[in-house]
């Protein structure tokens, strides 16, 4: 499996999972099965529990990325994979760890969304995948790795959420929302690319 294109593997695995779930529970809206997850919908000082989870997680991850060996190794790996391999960094382990952390984050989100909405179905978080990637890109991290930070992603997520909210308030259709978000992501990525090229040509 090592060496397979991660994008294709992810899309494939995602499609398999979604297919199986859709097949087993066609369009059902499943209420939480007995488990007491109401506390997840609690609000503390007027803000939902999930906001604190988000900020806490972001803070911890950001510290990890900046001050631990793991974080620095992730940056080095992203900067130049052949070099990281030749330097003896545990490339496979680091990659697996990164993916495992994402898996954990997605699971946390799943539970929080279930607690917030008090029921779940397959479509409830439909645009999250795109929105998450959009948040990273709008935050200005490089897709090719080695450049960016968790803090930027937090700002990116706030920007994306603000835009989504504005579009909802204006009463834009789903198509319109996706269009605007796509437009903004494209714009920011192109601008950043130009800015960075400028910066390097010194």
């Amino acid at each position, binding site marked *: 499996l090592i*060496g397979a294109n*991660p994008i294709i593997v992810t899309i494939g695995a995602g499609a398999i999972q979604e297919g199986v779930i859709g097949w087993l529970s066609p369009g059902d809206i499943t209420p939480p099965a007995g488990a007491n997850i109401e506390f997840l919908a609690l609000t503390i000082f*007027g*803000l939902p529990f*999930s*906001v604190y989870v*988000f*900020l806490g*997680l*972001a803070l911890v*991850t950001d510290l990890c*990325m900046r*001050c*631990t*060996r793991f974080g*620095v*190794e992730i*940056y*080095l790996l*992203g*900067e*130049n994979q052949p*070099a990281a*391999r*030749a*330097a*003896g960094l545990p490339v496979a382990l680091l*990659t697996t760890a*990164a*993916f495992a*952390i*994402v898996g954990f*984050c*997605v699971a*946390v*989100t799943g539970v*929080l*969304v279930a607690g917030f909405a008090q029921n779940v179905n397959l479509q409830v978080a439909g645009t999250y995948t795109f*929105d*998450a990637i959009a*948040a990273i890109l709008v*935050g*200005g991290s490089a*897709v*090719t*790795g*080695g450049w*960016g*930070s968790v803090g930027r*992603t*937090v*700002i990116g*997520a*706030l*920007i994306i*959420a*603000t835009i989504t*909210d504005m579009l909802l*308030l204006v009463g834009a259709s789903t198509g319109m929302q996706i269009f605007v978000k796509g437009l903004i992501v494209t714009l920011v990525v192109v601008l950043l690319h130009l800015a960075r090229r400028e910066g390097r040509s*010194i």
Partner: protein
Amino acid sequence: VVREGLVVIDRLSVPGHVVDFGLRANGGEIVAIAGQVGSGTSEVLRALAGLAPDARGHVSIAGRAMRLSAPQRSIRAGAVFASNDRKSEGLFLHQSVARNLLATRLKTVSRGGVLSRSVSAALAQRLAGLIGFDLKRLGAAAETLSGGNQQKVFLGRCLEKEDVLLLLFDEPTRGVDVGGRADIHNLVRHAASMGLRHLRIHRTRRDRGPCRHGGHHVRRPDHTDRPARGHDGCRYPRRDDPRLDKQGSRVSGVDSTTDGSAVSRVAGRMAQLNPAAIAVYAFVALLAALIIFGAFITPGFLSISNFSAILTSAAFVGIIAVGSTLIMLSGSLFSISPRHDDRHYSDPVHVPAALRRGRGDPGHVVPGHRDLRDPGRAGRV
């Protein structure tokens, strides 16, 4: 400490590149393996570094057998490799010099997985002193350095590690001007004189001009006063490193630590300005602008419940995004193939399908590996 037969290589083969290569070398010795590009000399070093997964043979360092399967294993056995391609397989060009120097020893500068700032800084300064690098430029990005300084940083990364028994340098002076070359030879000799270390320089004849005699052996460089000329009296041709042209012709024999051309100094200062911080402010400003804009076009935008809604949706997306940032940063999204074995050969010779054995397509093989059957061709300096 000189040990008899510190490094023993026996019947080393890399399919398509090297056939039955053997060598014995003692501690404190510098051994050069000579050969044309593609003759398999690089492959010998890569195999020892654990970067040629299909290599076969027996290698032992200080009496302990080493398996040739993974770079980490080689490093644990005491063999450290510096590729001939410092840009794509050596330095982390956008990271600081200090971080590049420490890249291979993050373990020694961290306690329980957390990096120690003071230990890192001290070690980086010690290494910079060893390679003769300007301490003030430790924070500059590696890409702003000249070719010679880049190479010194790259080699400096391999030096001064307690557990290193064998240094594998693949063409350590590639793309380095004459002054830098002498420095690097001195570094290599210094490392060898430290006793336990055993080093190997490997040179292929990469020069376009007829400078080295068929790459047969590497003579001891005359580092006293033979400036603008190569070791064998030939003028070295301009290398592929564009920086050499930018900085103009250098006065020969100048210690390249004082390499203070205006270009690189400005670049170093720009790197210290930290464009990342500026960008973050820009994004915060963008966010603020969005909020003000929102307040104008929609009436309920500034209400507390709406902010709560925004934060909630930001939280859901953000938790996923924070995790995914790690994947992005690790470059995993676009690392399609971890194989880079044959990349650095410039002129491919196509191999008939019948010759391709084992996994994958070796791409191209230059049929010159006969040379390596005779261990006598491995010259000593």
